[in-house]
């Protein structure tokens, strides 16, 4: 479980996050949604301590990550898997080497054990046949899937996904969403997904936090999000043409 308490962050005097608090539970896919520029990625980076917030706490199963000493921090980091928006694959390494990189750096597994684990993860994301390719030789969707394979290769307890569907066609986006949901359920991971994709919200959003101009305006799930009375969230949800049409027909 991940708890965030009163996270505040400003850049050059401009407030980006204004006291965000919330709980992301184990075994659930939690979504942080909002319009572009509302602070979603900044919140995720604060949770990962890539950006230091002005105030606030980030607790991983009760351990305060931001104030922990180096050893505890390192231990928590080994329990994390992160899928960045563009995949963040290492350009000079093959797909297989990208996935095995955390194992090489952070474990004492033998070469055979690492290969077995890498093969398992690549098969899990459907990319076993691409293991020898370079990142420049694969598509955007495949890069995301390799990113997921690398994120889960260490059997993480916490999985972060920063806009996993950005730049993908609708079918591939659904594939990525389903993969994230399956992995979360199968391994009982605490998963946090940053997104503004309404399809993801409605299909995998077991817990949803809505941010607007740095404030947490609403929280709920995929069922209650369609019934929200918060004007900003309503406008956000029903900006999707299909949903708007559905709502208008119902009315």
């Amino acid at each position, binding site marked *: 479980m991940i708890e965030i308490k009163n996270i505040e962050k400003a850049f050059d005097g401009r407030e980006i996050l204004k006291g965000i608090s919330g709980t992301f539970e184990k075994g659930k896919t939690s979504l942080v949604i909002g319009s572009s520029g509302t602070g979603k990625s900044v919140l995720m*980076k604060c949770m*990962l301590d*890539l950006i230091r917030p002005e105030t606030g706490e980030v607790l991983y199963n009760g351990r305060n990550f931001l104030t922990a000493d*180096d050893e505890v*921090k*390192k231990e928590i*980091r*080994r329990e*994390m898997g*992160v899928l*960045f*928006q*563009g995949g*963040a*694959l*290492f*350009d000079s390494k093959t797909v297989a080497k990208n996935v095995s*990189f*955390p194992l090489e*750096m*952070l474990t004492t597994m033998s070469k055979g054990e690492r290969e077995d684990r890498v093969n398992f993860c690549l098969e899990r994301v459907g990319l076993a046949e691409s293991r020898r390719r370079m990142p420049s030789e694969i598509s955007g969707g495949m890069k995301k899937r390799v990113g997921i394979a690398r994120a889960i290769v260490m059997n993480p307890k916490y999985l972060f996904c920063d806009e996993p569907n950005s730049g993908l066609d609708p079918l591939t986006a659904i594939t990525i969403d389903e993969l994230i949901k399956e992995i979360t359920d199968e391994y009982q991971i605490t998963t946090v997904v940053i997104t503004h994709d309404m399809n993801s919200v409605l299909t995998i959003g077991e817990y949803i936090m809505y941010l607007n101009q740095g404030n947490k305006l609403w929280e709920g799930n995929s069922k209650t999000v369609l019934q929200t009375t918060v004007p900003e969230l309503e406008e956000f949800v029903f900006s999707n043409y299909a949903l708007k049409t559905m709502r208008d027909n119902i009315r």
Partner: protein
Amino acid sequence: MLKTLGEFFVFLGELFVRRETAKVYWHRFIDECTIIGTDSVVIVSIVAFFIGAVTCVQTYSNLVSPIIPTYVVSNVVRDMTLLELSSTFMCVVLAGKVGSNIASELGTMRISEQIDALEVMGINSASYLVLPKLMAAMFTFPLLAILSGFLGIFGGYVAATFTGIMTADEYVYGLRYSFVPTNVLVGIIKAFVFGFLIATISAFRGYNTKGGALEVGQASTAAVTNSCIAVLCADYLLAELLT
């Protein structure tokens, strides 16, 4: 400027904390030696050869006095090559090649979140990425300086003998005349220091890139210009200290 200088020294400090295992650095060190050293051999060779040849020809054309023996030309080529051309001039060339390569590589990694990916794994990205480059530069630059010195003198030899400036014996006599062996060491020490400066300055610029492709280009340019200025300043200081 002072703020940037302070950030640079903080960056240098970060290279040596939370280090990975020696085995990790060894593999990366070998890779970087290939990229920084081996891949620079061709450009260093070509530049050194022609600079030596030009130095010989230009020195000869300006020594118009009949009382100055011709072997002075090779004497001048030797000392200029060992003290300045094989180290300082060569490192200015390498600042362009190696420095821009380091800055653009790290800058691209920064904007594509590859550095963030390393950090979230608990790896000190600055140490993992930069330290091998620094070690490789400090190791290969003196070797390239030695190669450059040899080829510079050889270039002068070829220019002198093929254009009839002097005979081969005269050239070799001039090379040996009042040779100061420590000049070789001076050139090597200079290359060692310049390797440190170029690697760290370029890495600092690339690692701290913020923005997109435009900023990566700007970082690369800044890396080269800053490195050149640092090399020239250090050259003066080292010249005062070592000679």
